[in-house]
Every structure is written in C-alpha cells, then in structure tokens.
C-alpha cells in the first residue's frame, strides 16, 4: 500500500483509488461511477474502502462524514480526502 506523506493533488488521490478499486474488483472504474448503486461493490466493501482511504492518505473519517455520499464515487472520496487534509504532513 502506498502511503502519501506530502501535499497531494486530486488527480493523484483519484488515481490511487481507481487503481485500488480496479485491482479488487477486476473491472474498469470511472471516477464518477456510483460504486454501490452500480453493484460493483457490496456494503461489506465499504469497510475496505474506509481502511484503505485512512491508511493511505492519513485521514480519519468520523462523525457526520460517515455517510454514503462521501464514498459513493471516486470523485466523492477524493473530495473528502482533500477536505480532511489527506497527505499533508500525514
């Protein structure tokens, strides 16, 4: 697993998440694909996404951020990581 420790761009976050998802699902993943609505991943996979996101970008997701809207797409997760300051000094 890559761990980002410095400033990071949205493109780098999205690329990492897409690589992770394509490796785990063996399917192509677009940044705006509804991961759960499309049936690509199950509810249980949300745990893997959460652990990957926190372990890779050094963020902690808690409280009101624990919503499906923040995990529904790669774009949404990218925005979440940026908002939580992921990779900056992490």
């Amino acid at each position, binding site marked *: 697993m890559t761990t980002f420790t410095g400033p990071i761009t949205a493109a780098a976050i999205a690329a990492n998440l897409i690589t992770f998802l394509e490796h785990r699902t063996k399917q192509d993943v677009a940044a705006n694909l509804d991961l759960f609505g499309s049936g690509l991943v199950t*509810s*249980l*996979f949300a745990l*893997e996404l959460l652990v990957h996101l926190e372990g890779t970008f050094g963020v902690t*997701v*808690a*409280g009101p951020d*624990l*919503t*499906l809207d923040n995990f529904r797409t790669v774009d949404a997760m990218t925005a979440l990581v940026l908002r939580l300051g992921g990779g900056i000094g992490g």
Partner: protein
Amino acid sequence: MATTTDPDLGRPLAVLGAGVMGTAITALAIGRGIPVVLLDVSETVAEQAATAAYNQMRMARIMGKLPSAGGTGSVRTTTDMRDIASCRAVIEAVTERAEVKAKVLAEASAVVADGTLIVSNTSAIPIDEQADWVSRPADLVGIHFMNPPYLIDTAELIQGPRTSVSTLAAATDLLESLGQHGVLVGDGPGFVINRILQRMINEAARIVQENVATPQAVDEAFRGCLGHPTGPLGTADLIGLDNVVDSLQILHERTRDDGYLPCDLLRAKVVDGDLGRKTGRGFFDYGGTTS
C-alpha cells in the same frame, strides 16, 4: 427510550469471545451507544477486535445501517471474567464447540447477579442443552445474530424449555435497544436457519467437490435464479468455514443425519487455513485481505 430511572442506563453489555461474531456484536452495540465489556482469553485478540469493531461500526454508519446520532459506546477489553459482574446482560459468542461454551457459560453465570440476562449466540447447540451449563437455566436464552448483525437487522430468538418469561422479555428489550427484530422460534439443533442453511452449504460444497459446478456458478445460480443476495458459498465464506464445519458436526452429532457430515472439501479448506473472508480466501479469493 431510556429514562433516568432506567436501571440499564450506562451499564455495559458483556460480549464473551472476540471472534467474528463477538466483534460484530460489539460493533452493533457501540453503534447504538451501548458500552461493551469485551472478554477473550487473549488480550491481544480482544484489543484487535475492539479496533475492528470500531471500524465495522463506522462502515455501518456509512451504509446508513447504524444511527449517526446518539453517540458511540465505549469498549473495555478484558481477560478476567470478574469484569463482567455488573453488566446489564451477557452475550456469549465463543467458538461453536460445546466444551468451550460450557466452560464460558458456567464461569459467566457464576459472576453475574441472579436475573441477569444470559444470551447464547450459538449457531446450532440447543438452548436446553446449554441450560445445564449455567447456574440459573431460567436466565438463559438464545439469540442467533446474523453476520454481520449491523447490516442484517433480524435475528432468531430462541426460547428454551426452561427460559423464563421475564428472560424472554429482557431479551426482546435488548434486541430492541440494538435495533434488531427477533423472530421467536423453538429449540432444537440448528433452530430454523442453520438446520437448513448449514446443510445447503454442505451440499453446495459437495457439488464443487464433485466438479459439478464451480463456486462461481453455484452462487450465480442462487443469486440469479432464486434471488438470494449472496449464494451459499459466499455466505459460508462470510460465516467462516471453520464455524461451518463446527456447526455441521454439532448438527450431525445431535441428529445422526449424514446430510450434515462435513464434506471433504470443507474439511480440507479448514485444514489449509482457507477459512473465508476472515483469512482472505475460502471458496472465493478476497485479495488476501480480511474484510
């Protein structure tokens, strides 16, 4: 809703066993704001389970299956049975082996007060058999939580012949506080779900063993033809194949029905350590990660 006079307010729930189900039940409880004392024979295992339970609870909140409001219960880990003495209720979730459950239930019932609800989260062992292992058989009831209980909100509620009316009422209240609906069923090996499910899993595995179909084909047929959200082998991987074999053996010992004899493929996977999702591989590959 709890009031200031609620005697259970703030009193933790004891969860015995920090395996797959003990962890998931802990996640369910803390996600509903109920503190937990999590006991295991290994402090390391208990601490890892507490972390896993916190992650599972957050996942359930992401999926909208646990409330975001109402706070998060704390988890205290321990290896000392005396630490559960003041708990509001006890949920036993140790390995599905009679000798292990007998020891743990006897120790737990010896330290809690008379009238404390004692729940066995057994997969298959009849409640009346377990009632012989506790100090007060009337205080024992069965609740067969599904896996994971924070995503599946219905459980089997098993009334043994010696379960008291007040114990059944307390179990119903506990289920309500956990956001669970209990389906009341009678006692017997495997109750309803596992009497049917474990045999189905065994037969599905035997079909793979005989090269009649691949695991993918078996589960695809159940999903596509019968509308099951998960096929029998995916379900087995989620349960844990060691638990499946243990449950089948319990069912076979108590029914003498050879349909419950674990097939060779199931036994081989357990010997090889391919126990399902919890080890990253069972009938299906989970990328070497636990999930």
